């Protein structure tokens, strides 16, 4: 793999170089806003000011892929984001919601993240980077990491076109993962690429083992009654859909007359059934969404963050999606060339899953 080792402070120059050399027309990257971290879209390289440590900050606001969803444009957008955001972007490319050529995906190592508001409230305590010991320590102080991050086993920067890998000390290794990434990096003057072999299998195993333990400890929703109880507070605001990077229909079924009956239609249904829960279609909405995102859900937890009623949706969407992905042996966002499970088939398969 082609890459270069830099001081983390040099990343500023790298991002500026990408804009300067027109490798990208615009960059979307996290920056500091007071105590907090938010995304910004930069076209003027002078507006980039000390992007480190903001790009590594353990804070999750929106999934960056959701920002560019459906942008079918000719210009090239560089996205500097956490691996889950980059994986969502790759799924969107497969879903034809984005053009492969119009994005340069730059993933950064992630240590797990806190809810945006939690991070802002405790920025000093949390700091710029966390490890498992620190996460446990903070938990004692009732500052909990997002559940989605706790069960995530894919938080290393090995997806997208370019990966930014943290090293011990203050160094980072920037690697070109795809040809497009290598090309973009070679365009920058102060950078000379060399062969970099980084073996992180040990780290991956450690993360996977930790995540597995947390996943098994998660309460399961294992019956209809449990699901009803779980969704008891849901007001069907559909914010989970809005913030989901891979929920992409132009017009959602649940905004149409059949999915969202009103007035006389609703009255007719109520008459037919004697009584009907309102807001209507709560269970149907969630079960349909579970199915619709089942193969593409990257488990970023944006749905849970978006829920105004604090329903821990990570226990619903990513957990079930993983079970569906398992039967197709599909990992969303892993390989841009791998077809989506529902667009392909084997002639002999799955017979044991049908009855």
């Amino acid at each position, binding site marked *: 793999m082609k890459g270069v080792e830099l001081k983390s402070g040099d990343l500023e120059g790298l991002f500026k170089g990408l804009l300067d050399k027109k490798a990208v027309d615009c960059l979307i990257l996290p920056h500091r806003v007071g105590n907090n971290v938010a995304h910004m879209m930069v076209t003027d390289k002078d507006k980039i000011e000390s992007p480190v440590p903001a790009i590594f900050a353990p804070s999750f606001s929106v999934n960056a892929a959701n920002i560019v969803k459906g942008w079918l444009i000719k210009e090239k957008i560089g996205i500097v984001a956490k691996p889950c955001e980059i994986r969502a972007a790759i799924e969107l490319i497969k879903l034809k919601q984005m053009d492969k050529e119009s994005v340069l995906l730059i993933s950064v190592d992630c240590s797990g993240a806190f809810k945006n508001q939690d991070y802002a409230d405790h920025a000093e305590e949390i700091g710029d980077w966390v490890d498992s010991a620190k996460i446990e320590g903070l938990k004692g102080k009732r500052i909990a990491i997002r559940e989605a991050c706790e069960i995530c086993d894919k938080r290393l920067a090995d997806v997208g076109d370019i990966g930014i890998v943290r090293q011990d000390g203050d160094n980072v290794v920037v690697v070109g993962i795809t040809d497009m990434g290598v090309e973009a990096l070679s365009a920058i003057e102060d950078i000379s690429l060399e062969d970099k072999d980084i073996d992180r299998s040990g780290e991956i195993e450690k993360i996977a083992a930790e995540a597995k333990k947390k996943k098994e400890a998660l309460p399961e929703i294992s019956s209809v009654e449990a699901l009803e109880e779980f969704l008891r507070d849901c007001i069907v605001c559909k914010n989970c859909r809005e913030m989901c990077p891979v929920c992409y229909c132009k017009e959602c079924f649940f905004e149409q007359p059949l999915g969202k009956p009103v007035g006389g239609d609703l009255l007719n249904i109520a008459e037919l059934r004697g009584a009907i829960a309102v807001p209507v279609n709560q269970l149907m909405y969630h079960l349909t969404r579970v*199915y619709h995102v089942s193969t593409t859900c990257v488990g970023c937890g944006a749905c849970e963050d978006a829920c105004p009623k604090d329903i821990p949706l990570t226990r619903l969407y990513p957990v079930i999606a993983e079970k569906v992905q398992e039967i197709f042996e599909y990992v969303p966002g892993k390989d841009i060339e791998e077809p989506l499970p529902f667009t392909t088939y084997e*002639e002999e398969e799955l017979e044991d899953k049908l009855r």
Partner: protein
Amino acid sequence: MGEETTKKEEEEFEPKIVGFTCNWCTYAAADLAGTSRKKYPPNSRIIRLMCSARLDPMFVLKALLNGADGVFFSGCHPGECHYIKGNFYARRRIAAIRTILKQFGLDNRFKSYWISASEGEKFANTMKGLAEEIKELGPSPLRGKVL
């Protein structure tokens, strides 16, 4: 007395089953079962689709949430689809939705089969088996709920 009534109710439980069949194979098989006077329980109501691939898993969810005790799908055998590969795609969707239903213990209420146009007898037997299976399971936990 209460016990007696429940027992009686259990005995009288007749499941409502919604079936989706493809036009070219299973619907024709159902027809054949009828014309060859094969008997099967009248619990299932069949909805005809033009192809397996028309089965949107939302149909299954909707039927279950509206109180169906069982749902089945049946179409041409894999490799024999009238539209060449419709049932290959359908099979993937069915596997996915059953995985989801399994999470909530509902997967045994949604079955799918492959029954070709010449298999009238198989259709009748399958319906018999399915009705018995669902009867054994009892009424759907979603039946009569205010949803």
